[in-house]
């Protein structure tokens, strides 16, 4: 059997020109669309900056919310957010890292192990508002912790735990086996190996995950609204049982008012919130970048 193949490609030159043109247009289109996405981000930032910058001053940062826009500020929201981060650091981070360490270093690879892993990745996908409802039912009402910082911190802990666990597991997984074997060969117990070798080696990765999860918690609004974090708080919480407000809730409150001035106040508060978040996220991305370079 013999086929003369060349003759089966009619109009070859024209077809090729069209194909090349398609390839060029397609690559340009993809680049354009990507930059469109980036441009949207720029528009978003610009819009917020223009709306809010004139309200940003020391008075704004150091005043309580008020019915009068010119007197209003975010003092209680800032302090509430700070309280929340601190409490999350002490509740969620140890829990999350311990879980990751257990799953990666101590538990046997079996059915239960796989089931727990599956469970954690599903928890990561549960909408935040569902955590809010659980927080309301369990912490606020069930355990009678009221609408306090503790309730908020516990609810948020549940929300960010899966994120911390998944990130920490990735970090621990990337520690080369050589380190483990070396430590075991010197007679170290599993815990000694984990504590003095695995954890330090995976620290940057864990830190990145922790920062990203905390920044997610700082920006979350819905679960805290569910557990009823007050939207008008003219005092500072003094202990974990006090009621509180946070930056996103204050922002939500101001956005939902009809007056233009409050919208601008919201924009000013968003600038503060985004500054905090972007600093944290950029830090996390930087640490990851550094670690990647070191590993190369």
């Amino acid at each position, binding site marked *: 059997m013999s086929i003369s193949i060349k003759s089966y490609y009619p109009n070859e030159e024209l077809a090729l020109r069209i194909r090349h043109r398609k390839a060029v247009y397609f690559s340009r289109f993809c680049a354009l*669309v990507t930059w469109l996405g980036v441009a949207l981000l720029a528009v978003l930032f610009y819009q917020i900056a223009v709306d809010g910058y004139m309200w940003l001053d020391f008075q704004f940062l150091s005043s309580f919310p008020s019915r009068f826009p010119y007197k209003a500020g975010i003092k209680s929201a800032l302090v509430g957010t700070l309280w929340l981060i601190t409490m999350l650091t002490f509740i969620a981070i140890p829990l999350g890292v311990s*879980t990751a360490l257990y799953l990666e270093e101590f538990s046997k690879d079996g059915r239960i192990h796989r089931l727990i892993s599956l469970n954690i990745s599903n928890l990561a996908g*549960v909408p935040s508002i569902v955590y809010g409802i659980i927080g309301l039912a369990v912490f606020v009402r069930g355990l009678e912790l009221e609408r306090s910082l503790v309730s908020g911190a516990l609810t948020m802990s549940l929300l960010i735990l899966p994120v911390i666990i998944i990130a920490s597991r990735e970090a621990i997984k990337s520690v080369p086996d050589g380190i483990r074997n070396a430590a075991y060969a010197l007679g170290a117990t599993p815990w000694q190996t984990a504590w003095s070798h695995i954890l330090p080696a995976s620290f940057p990765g864990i830190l990145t995950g922790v920062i990203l999860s905390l920044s997610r918690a700082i920006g979350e609004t819905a679960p805290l609204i569910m557990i009823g974090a007050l939207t008008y708080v003219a005092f500072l919480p003094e202990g974990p049982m006090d009621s509180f407000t946070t930056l996103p809730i204050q922002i939500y409150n101001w956005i939902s008012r009809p007056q233009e001035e409050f919208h601008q106040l919201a924009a000013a508060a968003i600038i503060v919130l985004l500054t905090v978040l*972007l600093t944290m996220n950029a830090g996390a991305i930087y640490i990851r970048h550094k670690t990647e370079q070191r590993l190369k």
Partner: protein
Amino acid sequence: MKIAMTLNKSNGKNTRSTWLEKLIVGTLAGCTLISVITTVVIILMLGKESAVFFTQIPFLDFILGTRWVPLLEPTSYGVLPLVWGTLLITFGASLIAIPIGLCSAIYLSEYASSRMRSIVKPILELLAGIPTVVYGYFALTFVTPLLKTIFPSIQVFNALSGAIVVGIMILPMIATLSDNALSAVPRSLREGAYALGATSFEVTTKVVVPAALSGVMSSFLLAISRAIGETMAVTLAAGATPNMSLTFLESIQTMTAFIVQISLGDTPAGGIAYQTLFAVASLLFLITLVLNIISQWLMNRYREVYDE
């Protein structure tokens, strides 16, 4: 000096360290249990209150009813308008985010220089970290006024604005996850295609994207699930009017927006309004859970093909 070593486990010092070791590992295992307990509690709480709800409202009336008036007499608990609102937002958001996100992913993995990539990817990741309440602000103060100049009849709260901002919100997620999937397609496959006289367009659309399809689909599903569960942006942008309107120009209410609306009023525990919260949340939980499980299944299948 005598060097002797006992391998006997009952050696004094050894016993203490073994005991300590066991305690520590036990503690770690206890921490792991928290995530299991969380799941159990979520399912129990949602199940328990929903069960109470369904003793009063027939399940079929809830799931098939087309009127959602839970707070005013005469009450009606047909959840479809809320589901419709959620679908409308999700559909609109996907329509925006999936094509743009996929194109960005293709740009990042196939066309961008490594320098460009190292600039654009962190930007997308930062975009993914913006709180949803900020997107709500963007919807109300920027998108809706802009839409008003195009559609003068548009309501202050409308589905279109919500869909647009939710679309912008899930876009970076689709772009970064799809980029990961496309980048995992082995180089050798691209080279094989180029060696047959293919152009970059043909290699990308006919070899790379199909090869990464399950990974890409997984990222779409994850993003859709995120859009369904999204709360603050849609509450602020799309309003609180449950209806089954076909146009994007009217106010609607999503499942999540309803939950927020109820919780803003001081609902007493145990009332029917309180239980409605759980019934709607259960539905939300189930829908997102199914999507997430399919997404993970696709992702695992994808990893099996290319991880060696």
